[in-house]
């Protein structure tokens, strides 16, 4: 592809470039097109030297800095308008963003306002007319090979499908500030406040150990054995969708396609059958230990370690063994 590939860069809370956006840069570089990027900010102050060096390491020739006084707060339609204006000014052949919540939202706005098709959560993109894409569906349980028509190509990159690797030849990235024209109507939807998260406890997404219970736990009270083991390991309690649907645990505890995606050192899944909905949330676990009375349960196909048995017997025995190990 000879025309520019333009990547929207999401900023991390610390002011750097979000990891998923770096993955999007690596993905876009494979298109073999000149690589440019777009950043959105409230003022046209250049990014820090560290950020610029980071972007340069990915081979980005120019970073377009869309500056508008209203951009201090996230406003999806307005930000998408800025991305679309940057894409038009460089005659982009492709506009790429991370398949994050915001990346998908913004690119869908770009697609809607420019009247182009869009492919979400891609793992491969081969330019052409039409282009060929491979994207993930069902939270990663299924791949779709599809043709993506239109230009520019609009695609988001499935999280953690592509490693963020520096370019063979780093670039000396130029900064090109611009002031997009933003219609008032595009600023109607914007962040007007923030409710801070309740403090305390180990967060499911960040825990090193997650102990989860499924339908096999049998009741809300049944989770006491799961809670006990999680506490002994300094971990978090999780559960399957069947459990939240039954009202045994809050939705914030749910691991799955429509719950939290976790990446612990070990995931201990108790009485969970291993439905695709659930596995989509725990794929990131380094090790998986499954405890299930049914030796044929599909979760064992993804498990590193298996215990065949009733969690109500096995889990307390593990807790007792841990206490014993600590006492000695």
């Amino acid at each position: 592809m000879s025309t520019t590939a333009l990547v929207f860069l999401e900023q991390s809370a610390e002011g750097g470039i979000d990891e998923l956006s770096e993955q999007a840069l690596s993905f876009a570089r494979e298109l073999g097109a000149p690589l440019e990027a777009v950043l959105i900010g409230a003022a046209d102050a250049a990014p820090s030297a560290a950020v610029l060096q980071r972007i340069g390491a990915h081979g980005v020739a120019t970073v377009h800095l869309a500056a508008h006084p209203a951009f201090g707060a996230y406003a999806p339609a307005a930000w998408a308008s800025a991305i679309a204006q940057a894409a038009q000014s460089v005659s982009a052949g492709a506009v790429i963003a991370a398949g994050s919540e915001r990346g998908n939202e913004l690119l869908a706005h770009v697609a809607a306002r420019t009247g182009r098709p869009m492919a979400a959560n891609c793992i491969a993109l081969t330019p052409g007319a039409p282009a060929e894409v491979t994207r993930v569906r069902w939270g990663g349980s299924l791949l779709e090979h599809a043709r993506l028509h239109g230009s520019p190509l609009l695609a988001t990159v499935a999280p953690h499908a592509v490693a963020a690797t520096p370019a063979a030849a780093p670039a000396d990235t130029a900064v090109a500030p611009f002031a997009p024209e933003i219609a008032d109507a595009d600023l109607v939807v914007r962040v007007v406040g923030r409710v801070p998260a309740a403090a305390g406890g180990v967060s499911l997404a960040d825990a090193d150990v997650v102990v989860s219970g499924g339908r096999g736990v049998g009741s809300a009270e049944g989770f006491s054995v799961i809670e006990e083991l999680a506490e002994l390991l300094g971990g978090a309690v999780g559960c399957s969708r069947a459990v939240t649907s039954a009202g045994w645990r809050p939705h914030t505890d749910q691991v799955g396609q429509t719950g939290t995606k976790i990446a612990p050192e070990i995931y201990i899944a108790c009485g969970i059958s291993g439905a695709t909905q659930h596995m989509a949330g725990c794929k990131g676990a380094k090790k998986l230990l499954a405890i299930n009375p049914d030796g044929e349960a599909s979760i064992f196909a993804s498990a590193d370690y298996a215990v065949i048995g009733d969690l109500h017997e096995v889990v307390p025995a593990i807790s007792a063994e841990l206490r014993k190990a600590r006492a000695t």
Partner: protein
Amino acid sequence: MNVLVCVKRVPLTGGKIVLTDDKQAISTRHLGFTVSPHEECSAEEAVRLIEQHGGASTVLTLGPPEAEEQLRDAMALGIDRAVHLVTDGSEWDPEATAAAIVAAIGADEQHYDLILFGTESADGGNYQVPIRVAHALGLPCITGIKAIEVRDGTVRCEQEVAGGRDVYELPLPAVISVKEGINLPRYPSVPGRMRAKKKPVLRTDPARPDARLELVRLAVPGGSGKQTEVLGTGPEAAPAVVGVLRELGLVR
């Protein structure tokens, strides 16, 4: 107020997805169906909003004749009426889906204050139909919402982000896509199911335009290739489990 909720019929997949021989769809011979999880919650949210504020609610789907099952399920929760855009069951890409919904809204005698979606469908995961619909109708739109409060012609929404929740305030009419966890959907009552059988379903059969995100074929990704180590059976396996945890440096 008047609320429209858009849902999609999807198969209830178990532990392993099996494809049809032509790789165009999931083989559903042995599967049941449901609505996407986020949309189950959007239907519940619609019913709660009408309970709070009065008014009427409509459920819409684009899908095969069998998708009437999902419309009846939503009406069993308390939705008043249904619009069924009947297809032959082949896949519609997100642009075509959005266009058909926009056309149906335009043709409907009802004027909607709030149009609810799930943020993404369980099967397609395209993340764009609500935004395309909002754009075509010239309405404000926000996605991924976990709390909704309607007051004085505006809707206050909360969206989960790292470190808390972002707050948005949209003027009505608006398009909002919600995520599972916004509520715990009620279990439909038997009288609710009986009433749902008699509620009206408006049917149309829109023509399917050529897809511009065109499905070629589906594929099931390769297995994990993991070797599973069986640590034992029953409580006797506990020492072996603790041994593994110790190896991983997780026993303090």
